[in-house]
């Protein structure tokens, strides 16, 4: 059988085909990323919370916005872009030394011995409630113990990295309260979140840089890329979050 040459395929139009595909992806690509403020909403409660919980005025930073998109922070009427300064003031006034005479949340100092004491106390309480069969109270106290354990973990990390044995911690009740009206626009609403995020990021970045030599936002971004593999980062982030919890309470608008 005669050997026949296989004719060469003309690849001249390959480029055209590739161009066609390229153009398709060029046109459909959107480079803008989806950016957002991530928040947690509170769990639904089966029973209404008791209304005798006392919250001190000093622990609340109330930010209000009305249907005319005017903003009020505590008793001042700042420009929307100045809200973050009020938040920084709220967190920083008593950070180093407590100023009980000023209307800002106080700090307390926690160390490992305190964690141990609190845990022991709670465990005794649990035994007491267990004996009478009050399951709800037991679950509640167990979550309180969990908080102290987290704090213990953070303290150990702090000691390992910086040698400090205690941490200054803001009042558990301290929070930012957002009160809007039904007709407040989404842009004002997100602007408030923007300002809160800005202030909290400044606080966390400064602290994170001081302790670990790296910005909080950078670390958080890296952690989010691969949440299952960065245990070290997670512990550090948790520590910073304990220092600056950035608690937000959003009140459902009534009018």
């Amino acid at each position, binding site marked *: 059988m005669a050997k026949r040459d296989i004719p060469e395929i003309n690849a001249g139009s390959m480029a055209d085909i590739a161009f066609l595909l390229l153009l398709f992806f060029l046109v459909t690509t959107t480079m803008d990323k989806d950016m*957002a403020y991530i928040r947690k909403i509170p769990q639904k409660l089966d029973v209404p919370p008791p209304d005798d919980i006392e919250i001190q005025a000093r622990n609340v930073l109330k930010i209000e916005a009305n249907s005319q998109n005017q903003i009020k922070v505590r008793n001042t009427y700042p420009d929307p872009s100045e809200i973050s300064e009020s938040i920084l003031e709220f967190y920083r006034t008593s950070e180093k030394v407590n100023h009980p005479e000023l209307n800002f949340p106080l700090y307390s100092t926690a160390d490992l011995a305190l964690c141990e004491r609190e845990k022991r106390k709670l465990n005794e309480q649990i035994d007491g409630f267990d004996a009478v069969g009050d399951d709800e109270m037991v679950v509640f106290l167990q979550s309180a113990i969990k908080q102290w354990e987290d704090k213990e973990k953070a303290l150990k990390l702090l000691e390992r990295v910086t040698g400090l044995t205690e941490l200054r911690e803001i009042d558990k009740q301290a929070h930012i309260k957002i009160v*809007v009206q039904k007709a407040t626009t*989404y842009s004002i609403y997100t602007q408030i979140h*923007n300002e809160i995020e800005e202030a909290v*990021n400044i606080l966390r970045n400064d602290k994170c840089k001081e302790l670990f030599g790296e910005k909080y936002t950078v670390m958080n971004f890296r952690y989010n890329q691969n949440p299952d593999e960065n245990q070290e980062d997670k512990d550090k982030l948790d520590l910073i979050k304990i220092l600056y919890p950035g608690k937000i309470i959003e009140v459902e608008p009534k009018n």
Partner: protein
Amino acid sequence: MSKFKKVDERSAPAMNTASLPDIVFMLLFFFMVATTTKETDPTVKYTAPSGSETEDLTPYKQRSEIDFLYLGRPRNPSRASAFEYGFALSLDNVVRAKADGLYTTNKVGEWKQNKFDSKPARMKKPIDGVITCIKADQEAPAGLIFEIRKQLQEVDALKIAYSVKDLGVNN
């Protein structure tokens, strides 16, 4: 006696274009990898407000841990009156009007639950871990946002994201 050939008699040699496809393919692959597809093309008109200090949602999108809902004005302005506050909610491209006996926001819980239930088991995380991202128009009233929040609370989908357009993305 032409000792010198005329220059313009010589035709230009053909350029070798054999490597052109390679170059084009390289570009092509770059754009293919860089492309993130939009979840849906929203059936409502919306202009996102601008903001800064935001978090990037791309990692969550890659892990399919996020659902988007759109809140904007209906494409057909004359239909606006059919909706509460004149704003329509688009859930997977379905826009429901009040006239059908359905409010715009009271389907959110059901929608979220359905979406969650239809996920394959191997991708399942607790519903709490799946973010719901609200992409709302800058004029949208906060009242509707809180109605959505309430709906999500009912189904225990507690992680929420307020979408904005970040003007100076610095990550």
